[in-house]
């Protein structure tokens, strides 16, 4: 664990300059889910603005973390990039092509390059297929490896790469533990030789000890296969450990985006500050005396978000202007973007 820590620090010191090629460019992404009413002739009565104008870039080779509370739209953003949802508006450029405009046939080539690791290892694997089949199926369907024997070799290789014995190929998912299943999920994502992997809460459902193993595995794979990750999580310490840059989302909006250390040591957006303040310190004596600043109120409904800055009803430093002016993401320091007019 500590060894992994030091190597990570080394690779990240040069991170700001190290990653230059833009792999994924999300521009003004909006995903509004219609709310319908009526049994026979459903009509749209409102929209849930799950993602409401999000723009960011992911550089090749980096790990971009996306954090935020439940329901802030981080998972939906990931699903839009995967094209599991058709975005309401906006562009998602992958390798210079807007993938929202591709038809399903053209999309297949992109799908090979963008893969996903899901949160729940119990429901992300088809219970009726053996692990070997789960891993071999994408190679067969997309004719990546035409020969059955070669496919089996690669299945065993993938299992080994992900820290599983080859014999697991003959097991069903229900015969394995959560951590083992998550490794199968990772192996499946690797089967297509992807460039970009979306880790949607990939370690949140695992025990802490297994979490550490899986995080180390993800880091090793990143170096070995030159992967780029979009790491969606609500666990700030995990994000701080694995991510080069971190984006903070609130109610469908991106509020802050900066290098990992910069964000955690010098948070500028009031929401980020409160979010980081909520992380408990693993020392009971400090924790007892610490002044907790709790975010007041509830998350507003994404159906009818507040005017101006969506965070203003809960913001400790809100001024009158916040109710009217919608803040845009501004670069306050090199590489540190904040969407707040008062910073």
């Amino acid at each position, binding site marked *: 664990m500590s060894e992994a820590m030091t190597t990570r620090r080394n690779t990240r010191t040069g991170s700001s300059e190290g990653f230059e090629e833009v792999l994924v460019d999300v521009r003004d992404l909006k995903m509004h889910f219609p709310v319908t009413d009526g049994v026979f002739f459903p009509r749209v009565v409102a929209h849930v603005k799950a993602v409401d104008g999000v723009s960011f870039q992911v550089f090749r080779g980096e790990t971009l973390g996306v954090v935020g509370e439940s329901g802030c739209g981080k998972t939906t953003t990931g*699903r839009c990039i*995967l094209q*599991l949802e058709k975005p309401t508006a906006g562009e998602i450029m992958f390798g210079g092509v807007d993938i929202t405009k591709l038809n399903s046939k053209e*999309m*297949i080539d992109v*799908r*090979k390059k*963008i*893969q*996903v690791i*899901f*949160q*729940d290892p119990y*429901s*992300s*694997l*088809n*219970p*009726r297929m053996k692990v070997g089949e789960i891993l071999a*199926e*994408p190679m067969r*369907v*997309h004719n990546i490896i035409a020969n059955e024997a070669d496919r089996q070799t690669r299945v065993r290789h993938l299992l080994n790469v992900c820290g599983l014995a080859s014999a697991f190929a003959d097991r*069903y998912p*229900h015969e394995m533990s959560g951590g083992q299943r998550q490794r199968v*999920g990772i192996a*499946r994502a690797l089967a*297509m030789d992807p460039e970009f992997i979306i880790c949607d809460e990939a370690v949140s459902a695992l025990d802490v000890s297994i979490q550490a193993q899986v995080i180390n595995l993800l880091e090793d794979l990143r170096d070995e296969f030159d992967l780029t990750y979009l790491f969606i999580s609500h666990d700030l310490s995990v994000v701080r450990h694995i991510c080069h840059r971190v984006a903070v989302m609130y109610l469908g909006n991106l509020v802050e985006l900066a290098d990992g250390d910069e964000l955690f040591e010098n948070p500028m957006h009031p929401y980020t500050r409160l979010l980081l303040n909520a992380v408990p310190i693993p020392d009971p004596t400090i924790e007892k005396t610490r002044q907790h600043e709790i975010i007041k109120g509830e998350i507003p409904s994404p159906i009818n978000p507040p005017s101006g800055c969506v965070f203003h009803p809960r913001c400790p430093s809100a001024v009158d202007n916040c109710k009217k002016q919608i803040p845009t993401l501004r670069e306050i320091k090199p590489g540190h973007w904040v969407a707040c007019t008062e910073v």
Partner: protein
Amino acid sequence: MTTTSESSLESQIEDLDAKPSIGEAIVKMARKQPVGVAGLAVVILMIIAAIFAPWLTPYHPEYNDFASMLTAPNLEYLMGTDQFGRDIFTRILYGARTALLVGFVAASVGAVVGMVLGVASAYFGGLFDLILQRVMDVFMAFPLIILAMAVVATLGPGTQNVIIAITIPFIPQCARVVRSNALAIREIPYVDAARALGFGHTRIILRHMAPNVVAPFLILFTAFVGQAILLEASLSYLGMGVQEPTPAWGLMLQGGAEEYAESAPWVAIWPGVAISLAVFGFNLFGDALRDTLDPRLRSR
């Protein structure tokens, strides 16, 4: 289809009992579901009768012994003879062939088509789902027997048309139940994973979603076989089904019921017993299967 559903059944039992041998599984099931095993015994008995009919009886089902018409059961004619001097025991055995043929073909086709439509309906959703479900509603508005009679009235009688007539009302029934199960499966991440891997709709529906609705599918299938046997008998009794001289239980009942009820009751009693026993057997087996595979459906 018979073979695949049987093999999935075996794997299902293995899943539940942490891989005992098939013998152990049957013993365990016998202890838990004695009534279901009785049903299974009836089903197996019927299958044996259908397969080995020529070896179990010396007579041909269409052989007329005009010397001994309407003979009461005796050692020569175990269940007696009908008004044309045909051996009733022989016709019961061969009638099991007709019943199983109609039952299994109609139930398989109906259940499989229904399952594919149900899963597709849940998978695509939206307008496709809405229109398909309203069409299904129209079909389900008619009672089974009325719909089957309407189909036979259009196509004409005969074994093949009876099978078609019985299949059609099964499709919406199966589609409806499977759809509700598939709607839940649609939201499980492995379906998203399959989409993210760039699999086609057909592959996702048939390989990833359909195998996971096997439990309700098997339960419906066994119930359908029993229903189909009853429907075939009803249609044949009404003269709209299987035609003479093919041995069929419903037909035998039709020939014997009214005229000989008092003078030669065995003509109507034996086919009646056969129909009841067969339907009863399939229903008991289906119920036991339902309790074993899907306890949530128990109240239905």
